[in-house]
């Protein structure tokens, strides 16, 4: 029966590939959705890790989705807001206060992030008087073509590279860290900041009340507590996860339906051949196996192609919307391959039953 199977596959390759294409699109939707959902979850976890129980103060007009994607607009607030907090009555509830000015520049087609903040450098990073330090992420260093120890200029400010920052998550790859004043000069925002991290809010009052107090003390700002941010994002992630589950279930049903429809349509169109084979004494298990193999091939090729397509899509989507390439969760490869093939086999249950119930006499008598 191998001969028949080989010829069948060759004859029906277009149908099998069409089925596989439908399955691959379904799988790629699941994988893309999961990649996006996982990235969002990771971002929230990073946020949690970054600001913990602390508070982020930003100018009121700032879009937080842009902020977390490192896209910064013209919104600023006075640098002396940090002093204003220090001298206010709520200072007793505050730990560290870090005023930062972020901004974007484009170098050789790469969008980079300037992060200006006054940091007390360890002695080994000290630079000579009159020279401004800078620490660059990998991508930023590549864009400027600099190494550790190099000096380079941005808008008339001379900077010396004291370190190339390597970070496993890749978050800081596009960043250029430098003193606040240098960042203000480069971004043309003297005396301004657009973020203030307030740490150690382990006060007796609750964090929400403290945030309200900060907003009252500093006009035109928004105080974002991690609880509120994470809650909002966790809610979104929960919704995405629910969608993900619904999409996965729908995908399983779609894969099974695709296989079912394709195989049933083949049986309907080639019923005379099946009747003939049964009349000639072909064992039913051979005929059913042929359809099973076709279904498994459809599922197998579909899931492989699905991974390929989802890799392309997630990469493009990541670059388009998050400025970094995403990739599907490759750990899902074997489970998805297994589930798809299993579901494809399930999809042949009804066709197999139809074959076993086929009356060859009737099919062969129809002219």
């Amino acid at each position: 029966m191998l001969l028949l199977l080989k010829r069948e596959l060759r004859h029906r390759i277009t149908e099998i590939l069409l089925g596989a294409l439908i399955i691959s699109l379904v799988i790629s939707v699941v994988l893309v959705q999961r990649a996006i959902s996982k990235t969002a979850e990771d971002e929230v976890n990073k946020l949690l890790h970054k600001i913990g129980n602390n508070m982020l103060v930003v100018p009121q007009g700032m879009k937080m989705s842009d902020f977390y994607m490192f896209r910064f607009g013209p919104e600023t607030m006075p640098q002396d807001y940090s002093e204003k907090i220090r001298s206010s009555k709520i200072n007793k509830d505050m730990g560290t206060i870090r005023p930062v000015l972020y901004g974007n520049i484009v170098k050789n087609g790469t969008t980079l992030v300037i992060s200006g903040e006054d940091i007390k450098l360890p002695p080994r990073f000290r630079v000579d008087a009159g020279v401004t330090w800078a620490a660059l992420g990998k991508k930023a260093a590549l864009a400027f073509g600099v190494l550790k120890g190099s000096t380079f200029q941005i808008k008339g400010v001379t900077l010396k590279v004291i370190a190339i920052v390597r970070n496993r998550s890749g978050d800081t790859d596009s960043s250029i860290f430098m003193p606040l004043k240098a960042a203000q000069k480069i971004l043309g925002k003297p005396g301004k900041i657009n973020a203030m991290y307030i740490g150690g809010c382990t006060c007796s009052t609750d964090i929400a009340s403290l945030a309200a107090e900060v907003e009252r003390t500093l006009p035109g700002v928004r105080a974002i507590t991690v609880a509120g941010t994470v809650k909002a994002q966790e809610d979104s992630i929960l919704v995405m996860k629910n969608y993900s589950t619904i999409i996965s279930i729908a995908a399983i049903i779609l894969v099974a339906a695709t296989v079912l429809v394709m195989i049933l349509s083949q049986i309907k169109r080639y019923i005379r051949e099946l009747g003939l084979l049964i009349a000639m004494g072909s064992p039913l298990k051979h005929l059913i196996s042929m359809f099973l193999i076709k279904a498994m091939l459809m599922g197998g090729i579909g899931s492989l192609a699905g991974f390929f397509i989802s890799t392309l899509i997630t990469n493009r989507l990541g670059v388009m919307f998050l400025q970094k390439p995403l990739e599907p969760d490759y750990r899902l490869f074997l489970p998805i391959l297994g589930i798809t093939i299993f579901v494809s086999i399930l999809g042949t249950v009804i066709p197999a039953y139809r074959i076993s119930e086929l009356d060859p006499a009737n099919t062969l008598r129809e002219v």
Partner: protein
Amino acid sequence: MIQINSLTKCFESTDDDEIYALDDVNFSVDDGEFVSVTGPSGSGKSTLLFTIGGLMTPTEGEVILNDIDIYELTAAERARLRREKIGFIFQTFNLVPYLDCIENTALPAIMSGHSQKDAFSNAEKILTGLALGHRLHHRPMTISVGERQRVAIARSLINGPEVILADEPTGNLDPETAMGVMDLFKEINSEGQTIIMVTHDHNLAKQGKRMIRLQEGEIAVDNKIAGGVQ
């Protein structure tokens, strides 16, 4: 030898009536016979053929092939019997369109477990014997209808069956080609092959050694034909 005992096949119609396609049919076919089954449309000719071929379970009665009641066998055993002991030929040829002539012919042998090489070699011999040596690798759609029917005959012969069951084998052929096919049947029969052929064409039916005429599911006439196959 084939023994048909009290064979009855009843179909239920939509208005719960029962239609007897075969009604208590009895006859036997000796080895090497060439039996033509004839009769008007709806007389039960094809039903009889399919029932003898193990493709249609009778309502009552038995079909005994070499002392085995084929409807006492399991479906799998009956499939094996069809594979090895019965050759089918149909009016519409029923060749697999994506297999070429040699593959179509070799298919039953491959299904019976013969190696592809042996099956192809045997198929080539039979096809060459039927003057189709030049069509071995042609697909059914690229050859004439007469040639298609000869391929179907070759396929029915490949496993050396005990009986060939032919259902209107000349129904789709022009008179000249039909006579060619009948000559082929007579030649195969002269070598000792049992043939049971259903036809509505009285003249073609007379080409066999014996003619059974069915009328409303019953045998109306069962005659040896004088001057039939020699």
